[in-house]
């Protein structure tokens, strides 16, 4: 069974919490987490709703494998209508919070309405209550966790919260748990802030005991762990180098977007890479990286724990940042580094710490700084407007702007809008590098053609985690495809998107898919979950989830025009490296993709498609 079969519904208007049974019929069609919570969300929320209005809802949800010994079985997701995008948002986080929520006996928390004053939700097993958060408002994520654990006199409490970014309306604010894991993208923290909900504190001691066949599950989980351990990426690359293993690889391919996608190779990539993180620094003879770390249940352990250089300009006289903390992951290192032309590893880590401390997405923030730096170089943004010189490559500007964005000070307020709104405001909308107002992650659509299509069609705006064709186009998983061509990419993207939807609905991490296919996940689900979980059923479910999300976005007002890339990627060829001379073939791939999906020319699922998927 694996589900706790209980939903906690929190009415922030009236301050009430009540338990209701999980819809088990839906659980059979949508499994859990992303799929099931999205089903709840779209059944209850008007697609046209303003993301920041009390009528938007926010769901925190676990999967059936969350809180089990399945490797990486500690994930939870936040589903809402994204503040940044206005599209369906689903942000996934690791750490320990998700498992704790499950142990407390809840599959899902649905927040509705808006509290009149700041509150936080305190859960201890079956008991849930909203508590006053006046003393927490204005505090950082790190302070909030500490204060709650102290006041509950329970260091084993797990907390997720928003920082000042979420309170101040930074459009890409995150919800951060366990100090440095985050439901990071699309502005889910902004929605949480708009509801005056500061944090959720959970202590769960009930565990997960309701399994269909615990013995079969244990042997399936053990076999699947072996697959991860024996795989070069999940067994060696990720634990040793983290996701940062990609920095030099992607740069060599000429697919590392640099200086707001003006360039596709970064001359200082090496300085901000995994290799640089393990080298000894001249200043103190220590390496930047302290250790790798795992989230709950994870046998990969890609997480990075680093210590910033105490002598770096960003933290002299700030001992509060000298301890070990999370970072840098590849996406953050890219967005804070290459996207701005900043090659100072310690500066990137400082900005990353600020993102964690006050809860905002380093991808969107870094990319927005990149756009601002281009506007500065074009003379549209001036020193007077920004409050400092901000050319590409300025580590000082990056650090100061991170701090200003966290606190909602000066130009930091405008950076908090995200690149789409910022570039629009200054009359250069084409300079925002993203899709559906969400900034691109760390792969250039011109040098890895499939990613361009994955970005354009991602249901939550530009994102690498909705269809990570990098696995195939770069790493050869499950088969190697040529990153420079468009042929075959429509089917490839569809296959990745559908499979990812299943993994995101199970409670495990998408990084398992470097080694696992659905065939590795299926036996674990079949042993844990009541019902008949065949490969065919799971594959159909992934496609169903994708189409369900798409329908929500279509109803919210998105059209085929929104499945597009910025003109730069379609007209300005790559200048250097293996992809030299290429632009994105998105216009060729998109119609092929619609056809592969069974959608019409406007990107609307046909009647036959919906019928086939039971929608």
């Amino acid at each position, binding site marked *: 069974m694996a589900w706790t079969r209980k939903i906690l519904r929190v009415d922030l208007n009236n301050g009430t919490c009540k338990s209701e049974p999980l819809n088990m019929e839906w659980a059979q069609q949508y499994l859990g987490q992303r799929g099931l919570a999205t089903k709840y969300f779209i059944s209850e929320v008007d697609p046209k709703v303003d993301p920041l209005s009390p009528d938007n809802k926010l769901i925190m949800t676990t999967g059936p494998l969350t809180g089990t010994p399945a490797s990486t079985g500690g994930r939870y997701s936040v589903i809402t209508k994204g503040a940044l995008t206005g599209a369906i948002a689903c942000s996934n986080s690791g750490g320990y919070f998700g498992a704790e929520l499950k142990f407390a006996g809840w599959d899902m928390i649905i927040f509705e309405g808006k509290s009149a004053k700041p509150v936080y939700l305190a859960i201890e097993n079956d008991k849930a209550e909203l508590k006053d958060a006046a003393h927490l408002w204005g505090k950082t994520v790190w302070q909030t966790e500490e204060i709650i654990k102290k006041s509950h006199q329970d260091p084993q409490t797990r907390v997720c919260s928003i920082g000042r970014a979420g309170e101040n309306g930074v459009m890409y604010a995150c919800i951060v748990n366990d100090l440095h894991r985050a439901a990071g993208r699309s502005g889910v923290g902004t929605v949480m802030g708009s509801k005056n909900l500061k944090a959720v504190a959970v202590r769960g001691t009930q565990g997960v*005991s309701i399994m269909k066949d615990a013995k079969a599950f244990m042997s399936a989980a053990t076999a699947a762990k072996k697959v991860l351990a024996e795989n070069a990426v999940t067994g060696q690359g990720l634990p040793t180098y983290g996701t940062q293993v990609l920095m030099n690889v992607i740069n060599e391919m000429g697919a590392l977007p640099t200086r707001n996608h003006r360039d596709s190779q970064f001359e200082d990539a090496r300085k901000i890479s995994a290799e640089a993180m393990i080298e000894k620094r001249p200043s103190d003879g220590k390496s930047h990286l302290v250790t790798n770390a795992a989230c709950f249940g994870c046998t990969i352990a890609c997480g990075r724990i680093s210590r910033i250089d105490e002598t770096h300009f960003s933290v002299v006289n700030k001992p509060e940042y000298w301890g*070990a*903390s999370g970072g840098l992951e590849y996406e953050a290192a890219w967005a804070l580094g290459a996207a701005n032309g900043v090659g100072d590893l310690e500066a990137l880590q400082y900005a990353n710490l600020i993102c964690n401390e006050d809860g905002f997405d380093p991808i969107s923030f870094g990319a927005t700084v990149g756009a601002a730096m281009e506007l500065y170089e074009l003379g549209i943004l001036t020193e007077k407007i920004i409050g400092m010189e901000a050319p590409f490559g300025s580590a000082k500007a990056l650090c100061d702007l991170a701090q200003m964005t966290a606190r909602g000070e000066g130009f930091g307020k405008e950076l908090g809008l995200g690149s789409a709104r910022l570039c629009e405001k200054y009359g250069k909308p084409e300079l925002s590098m993203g899709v559906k107002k969400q900034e691109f992650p760390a792969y250039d659509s011109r040098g890895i053609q499939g990613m361009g299509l994955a970005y354009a069609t991602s249901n939550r705006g530009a994102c690498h985690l909705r269809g990570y064709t990098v696995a195939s186009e770069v790493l050869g998983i499950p088969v190697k495809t040529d990153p420079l061509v468009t042929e075959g990419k429509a089917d490839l993207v569809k296959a990745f998107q559908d499979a990812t939807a299943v993994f995101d609905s199970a409670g495990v991490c998408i990084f398992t898919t470097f080694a696992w296919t659905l065939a590795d996940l299926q036996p674990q689900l079949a042993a844990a979950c009541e019902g008949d979980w065949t490969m065919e059923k799971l594959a159909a479910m992934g496609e169903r989830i994708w189409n369900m999300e798409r329908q929500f976005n279509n109803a919210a007002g998105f059209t085929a025009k929104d499945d597009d890339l910025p003109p730069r990627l379609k007209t300005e060829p790559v200048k250097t490296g293996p992809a030299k001379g290429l632009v994105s073939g998105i216009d060729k791939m998109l119609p092929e993709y619609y056809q592969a999906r069974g959608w019409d020319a406007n990107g609307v699922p046909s009647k036959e498609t919906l019928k086939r998927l039971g929608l």
Partner: protein
Amino acid sequence: MQKSLHIDANKCTGCLQCEMACSYENYGVFNIAKSRIKIFNFEHAGRMVPYTCTQCAEAWCMNACPVDAIRVDAATGAKVVNEANCVGCKVCTIACPFGTVNYVAETGKVQKCDLCGGDPACATACPTGAITYVDADWTGLDKMRAWAGKTDNATRASA
């Protein structure tokens, strides 16, 4: 051969697979709240440390128990709580210098590591080798090997 749990904190990633395995082995549930081994995460130092009973030879808990509910398992050397005898007085939890015997409100008894009868589930579950089950007389073997490997043989090689 007597065996002993051996912990190398440098290898711990904080995944808690050991805690899950412990609760499943002893209670048939996946519940870290019932685990007899705990991982401590010293966040600001970047250190994760597994900690559990070391099975003291002169066990404080055993000596303190007024009802003789903690006995030595002759096969493994583990100090094992006999729940039928335990009256839940908690004196052992006070006596233990390391905090590794704890009271369980639900059962009214105390619990501690019993080495799973000689096949500790935590060691089997640990994906990184941070927890192993080794010859009790040679828990220092890996450390010795590491240092031995650093010994300079250059003089002999060049002679």
